């Protein structure tokens, strides 16, 4: 049976593919990526890209959440201060109605109530990073203003009644703000209006007939404010915990993604070494095969 006398030409094809293999392995070692083009491992490439979408989503939420948390903390602090102020106002009003104070003391109570009212208005106009926190969704304009030319003074709210929202990666929609109209000028429990009334009630030195009804309304206002504050506090904890979870999830997904596409260094190094051995052996074969033929031995 006759054999192919030009077989060594076919060996150069094998040598080419060994060299190609060596290049690929070296590239994987130096870049650390086993998958640098989709055809290297289509399934891993596809999976890794899908994961990177999720990772990016978690990361974006975590970053956004931190800004939102700061804003909500500012709102919360303002409400806490407001609670202190209102409590003080309530005890002043109680004292004023107690009958133990004389006329000038009652007038002075009115003035103290006025300054507490101003403090509450200032807290209600709290802003964070250029936006008014208690203006609903009209946060570019200052929500509360009080006109003291009348007695009792009149309050104007120029915000709206909407809330701002965020959404967790799990799809839960959470309110991140409460409009000032629901806290400070709530219908039937309006803190600022009631304080305006109380100031007018004690201004003359004698408590007026509506003073004790106003005091009751003020207490209702405090209860409402506390309720709203606790709602806001709950939203804040949900945001904090979902943000922590998103952060942990992101780390896990990143680890999964890395293991999908990165090089198994020891495996690649071993393959590279055996590839080089094979290459060397093939080079030896090519150089010695086809070197001699019968012509070399004739006529010696």
């Amino acid at each position, binding site marked *: 049976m006759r054999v192919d006398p030009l077989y060594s030409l076919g060996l150069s094809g094998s040598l080419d593919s060994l060299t190609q293999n060596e290049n690929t392995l070296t590239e994987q070692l130096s870049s650390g990526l086993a998958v640098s083009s989709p055809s290297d491992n289509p399934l891993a490439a*596809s999976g890794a890209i899908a994961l990177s979408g999720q990772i990016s989503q978690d990361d974006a939420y975590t970053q956004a959440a931190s*800004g939102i948390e700061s804003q909500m903390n500012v709102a919360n602090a303002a409400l806490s201060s407001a609670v202190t102020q209102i409590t003080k106002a309530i005890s002043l009003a109680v004292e004023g109605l107690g009958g133990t104070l004389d006329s000038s003391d009652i007038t002075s109570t009115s003035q103290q109530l006025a300054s507490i009212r101003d403090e509450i208005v200032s807290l209600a106009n709290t802003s964070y990073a250029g936006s008014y926190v208690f203006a609903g969704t009209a946060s570019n304009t200052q929500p509360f203003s009080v006109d003291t030319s009348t007695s009792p003074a009149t309050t104007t709210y120029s915000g709206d009644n909407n809330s701002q929202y965020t959404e967790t990666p799990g799809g839960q929609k959470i309110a991140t703000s409460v409009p000032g109209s629901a806290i400070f000028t709530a219908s039937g429990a309006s803190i600022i209006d009631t304080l305006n009334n109380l100031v007018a009630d004690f201004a003359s030195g004698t408590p007026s007939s509506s003073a004790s009804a106003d005091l009751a309304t003020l207490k209702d206002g405090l209860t409402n404010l506390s309720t709203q504050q606790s709602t806001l506090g709950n939203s804040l904890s949900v945001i904090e915990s979902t943000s922590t979870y998103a952060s942990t999830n992101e780390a896990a997904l990143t680890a999964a993604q890395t293991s999908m596409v990165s090089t198994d260094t020891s495996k690649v190094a071993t393959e590279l070494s055996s590839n080089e051995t094979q290459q060397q052996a093939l080079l030896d074969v090519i150089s010695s095969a086809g070197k001699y033929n019968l012509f070399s031995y004739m006529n010696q």
Partner: protein
Amino acid sequence: MATMMGLMYLSESALNADQEAINITSNNVANQNTPGYTREVANFQDGDTVSLNGYQTGDETVSVSAQSQRDSVLEQMLQQQTSSSGQTSSRLAALQSVENLFGISSTSSNASSTTIGSALSGFFSSLTSLSANPTDSATREDVVSAAQTLVSAFNSTAQGLNSETTELNSQITTAASQINGLTSSIAQLNEQISQYSPNQDAGTLEDQRQEDIDQLSAIIGVNQLTSNGNGVMLTTSTGAVLVSGTTSYNVSTTPVDGNTQLVAGDPPTVQADVTGGSIGGMMQARDQDIPTMMSSLDQLAYSLGTAVNTQNEAGDTPSGTAGTAFFSLPSSASGSAGAISLSLSSADDIATAATTEGSSGTTNALALENIGTSAVVGGQTATNYFADFIGQVGDTVSSATTANTTATTSLTQAQTARDSLSAVSLDEEAQNLTQYQRSYEAAAKVFSIVNELLADTINLGTETTVS
């Protein structure tokens, strides 16, 4: 009856025959590396003898003819494998060039970053930041710039696919221009072969013709039929005639709907879907693989763009005006990836609030953000659709690589099979040379002995010698 003169003629013909055999051997050795050369063996033939009145008489000389060791089945197999291998390798080259548009690299925050993938993620992240801070101007500007990055990613990828198509068209034209030279050479060889050896193997003429056919097969797939007078008829895979007898039919190229197509046959008609050879591979990449990829990208750009536009138009900007389209798109998906552009005139045009909310409302911004996690294209989210697309690109290239490896291996095997029969072995030629050399020496020796005998015969009965 054997005569002395007869013996002389016999040795003379033996010497000639051996010389011819040595010529054949030397020719083989000289042409060992000639592409397409088929080795020849010296065929020794006895002269014809007849019996007349009990005596053997007739042509007593020996002659030698060269016989090419060729098997047409092996040659055809080699030709077909050349054609398959030409197709798979040129298709693979085109696909690998296109795959570079979708390279995966590693960044500090992402182990698998692709141009479009990162642009998609960046765009959705910017919308998330926007919903948390809808009136902040820097945050709004980030959305605009992320949208621009996304648009550029689509545009540049589409452009890359289009320029690959243009490149393939130009390569097809170049390859087609080589066909005519080969077909006219084959037609001429057909003529010469039918003139000189219509009934038997035509030796080196057939070698040349087969070599031309192989080169042609590497360019375009051909079907081969034997015709009268040892001729060959060649047609394309679609049946258009390239060579028939002594006539060759030129091919040309013409643009059809922007793509270069082959015009061949008699009468010349546009041949769509030719297969085989480098032209077949390039056409496959240009007409099937690339359009599939382009269509998926177009679908992604169109569906995503439309979803964002619709949502933006459903809300109000902070200044209270109704939202307008984010992106400008063609009227249907086709061409969207290349044509998509940003249509917002400024960051103020992003509609973050619902129509019932004030300037810092977040409801529409949240809805825009949710586009990233909703099924907007092909029943999947934009990112998952793109991830699937990358998987498909990878599968296409990977299976083309496998097909090419298989075809190359088959080609090597076909080549080996053909070479086993037809290639020159130096060992064999050396052995033959020795044999013919000895044979020549022996014939020369016979001649000198016959010469001496003749001298003896002439001198029979006389005492003086003639030498």
